C-alpha cells in the first residue's frame, strides 16, 4: 500500500503558522516523522489561507525534498501552483488532483505526462459528488478514456472514489467500497485506487476508530494507496495486519516493525 502522509497541510494551525513564518525545521521534522512511521509519499498542501500558493508550494517542496527522497504529492486546486511545484520538484511526484471534468483532465493529464508525474483523479464532476457506485464507475471510465486518448500511462493514474463523512452520507460507505472493487475491472492491468481516508470521519465522534475500520475494509476491496495520518499508530498497525492477513507480506514475528522499516 502506498501511504501518503497527510499532515503537511496549511489547514492545520501549526503548519499554517510554520508556512507563514517559513519555519523549515518544523516542516522537515513533520516530513521525517511521517516517513519514519511508514509514509513513502507526503501530501503538500498550502491550505486555503495561503496568500501566495505558488511560492508557498515551491517552498514546501524545496524544504521537504532537502531532507527526504519521499514522493511528493502536490495538493492544490490551483493548476499554476502545481505546475510551478513540478518545475522545482526533484523527487517523484503525484498531482493531487484532477477530477472527471474534461477541462481539468485535458489540462492536468498533459502536465503529468510532461513532468513524468503520477496523477490522482477524483470520480466527481461539475454535478458534484456521485451518489452511488454506478455514477462513480461511469466517472472512472471517463477518466480512463481521457488518459488512454492522451497516451498517458495508466500505471501512473490513481482514481479516488471520493469518500463522504459517515455522519453526513451513511449510505455512501458501501457504494464507495463496491466502487473500489469495480474500478479494478475496468482495465487490464487494473487501475490503481486511492482514498483521502480522513474524510470518512469528518465531523464524527471516534474519528480514529472510524478511519481505522474503513481503511481495513478498503484494503479488502483492493485499495492501493491512501492519504492518511501515519502518526496514528493503531491505524498503521491495523493496515499492516489487514495486508498480512491478505497474504500481501510474508509473516515474521516482528511483522509490525518489518513493515515500517521497509
Amino acid at each position: 500500500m502506498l501511504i501518503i502522509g497527510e499532515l503537511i497541510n496549511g489547514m492545520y494551525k501549526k503548519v499554517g503558522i510554520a508556512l507563514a513564518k517559513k519555519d523549515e525545521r518544523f516542516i522537515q521534522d513533520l516530513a521525517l516523522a511521517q516517513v519514519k512511521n511508514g509514509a513513502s509519499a507526503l501530501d503538500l498542501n498550502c491550505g486555503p489561507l495561503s496568500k501566495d500558493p505558488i511560492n508557498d508550494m515551491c517552498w514546501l517542496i524545496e524544504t521537504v525534498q532537502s531532507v527526504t527522497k519521499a514522493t511528493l504529492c502536490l495538493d492544490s486546486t490551483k493548476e499554476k501552483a502545481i505546475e510551478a511545484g513540478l518545475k522545482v520538484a526533484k523527487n517523484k511526484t503525484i498531482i493531487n488532483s484532477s477530477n472527471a471534468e474534461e477541462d481539468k483532465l485535458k489540462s492536468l493529464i498533459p502536465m503529468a505526462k510532461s513532468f513524468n508525474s503520477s496523477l490522482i483523479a477524483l470520480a466527481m464532476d461539475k454535478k458534484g459528488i456521485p451518489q452511488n457506485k454506478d455514477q462513480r464507475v461511469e466517472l472512472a471510465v471517463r477518466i480512463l478514456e481521457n488518459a488512454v486518448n492522451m497516451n498517458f500511462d495508466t500505471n501512473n493514474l490513481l482514481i479516488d472514489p471520493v469518500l463522504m463523512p459517515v455522519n453526513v452520507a451513511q449510505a455512501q460507505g458501501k457504494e464507495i467500497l463496491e466502487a473500489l472493487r469495480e474500478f479494478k475491472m475496468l482495465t487490464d492491468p487494473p487501475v490503481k485506487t486511492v482514498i483521502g481516508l480522513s474524510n470518512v470521519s469528518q465531523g464524527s465522534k471516534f474519528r480514529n476508530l472510524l478511519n481505522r475500520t474503513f481503511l481495513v475494509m478498503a484494503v479488502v476491496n483492493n485499495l492501493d494507496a491512501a492519504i492518511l495520518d501515519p502518526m496514528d499508530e493503531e491505524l498503521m498497525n491495523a493496515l499492516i495486519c489487514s495486508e498480512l492477513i491478505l497474504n500481501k507480506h510474508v509473516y515474521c514475528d516482528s511483522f509490525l516493525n518489518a513493515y515500517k522499516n521497509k
Partner: protein
Amino acid sequence: MLEQYTEKWANNINVITLGNSSLKQVRIGGQNTLPFLSKEGNTPNKPVIAYEIWDTAPLDWPQYLETEFSKYWSDPLSWASYCKNELSADLICLRLQGAHPDSQNRNAKELANLCKKIQETIKLPLIILGCGDHAKDNEVLPLCAQALKGYNCLFGSATQENYKTLVAACLVDNHSIIAESPIDINIAKQLNILISDMALPMDRIVMNPTVGALGYGLEYTYSIMERARLAALTGDKMLAMPFICFVGQEAWRAKEAKASFKDFPDWGKEETRGPLWEMVTANAFLQSGADILVMRHPKAAQEIKKLINKLIKT
C-alpha cells in the same frame, strides 16, 4: 503472434562481495528477476560453486566421495589447494567438524590458525562453518573470524536460537554471515531482522533456507525459496538476501546416491548415480534461486558449472 509478457520487478537481490580486494573476490546477488529469465531482467552475477572440505577426515562420506578425496583428508590445506588448482573452485567452504566435542574436540586456537593458513595459501574467498554444537561454535568461530580479519569471509551459521555471538564477531572483524532457518520462510525473515537489528548491514547476510535432496523434501525448499524470492523482488527487503544451498551434504545423504550397486543392481553404477543425484539436486536449486551451491563431487560440480555458463552468457 502473441506479445511476450514480461514481469517488471521493483527490487533487486542484495549484492554480496566475498574475499579481499587484493586477492580474488566473488560477487553474488544483484539480480532483478527470477533465475535465468534474461529477457525479463539482469543477473549481473552468476551462481557460484564452493567445494566443501573438512578440517578432519569426513568418515561418514560414502565410498565414491572417499575415492575422490581421501588422499587429502589428513591435510585440509592440500585438499583446499586441490579444489582450487585442479577443480577450479570459485570458493572453498571449510567445515570445522573436528571442533565438535563428539569428534576431536579441537581447540579454537588451532582451528583459527588452520583457517588463516588455508586463506593465506589458496587466496580464494572462504566460507567457514562451525561444527553445529552451539557452545563450541561460539568459542571457535569468533577466534577464526579474528584470525581472518580483513579477508571478508562468509561465516555460518547463525540460527534463531544462536546468532548473537557470530553476528558480533562478523561485525567486529568485517565478515558476512549465513542466516540459517529450518525450511521456514517466516523464521528466515525474522532471523534477517534480528541480525540487521544488531547493525550488521543487509548486504552482508546470505540465507541458508535448509535444503532437502531430490526425493527428500526438495520440493518444500524449492517453494520456500521461490516464495522468498518473489517477495524480495516485489519489495520485501528483509528477504532480499542471496541464497546458499548445501547441496552436496544433502544429496549424498540420500540412499539413491550412496547405496551400492550390489544391493540395488537395477539402479545403475554408483560412480555415475551419486554425482548424478547431486547434480540434479543442484540444478533444482539453481532454478529456485540459489546463489552459492556448496557441492562435493567434482563431476557433479563441473557439470553444474557448465550448465550455469550455458544458462547465463555474460
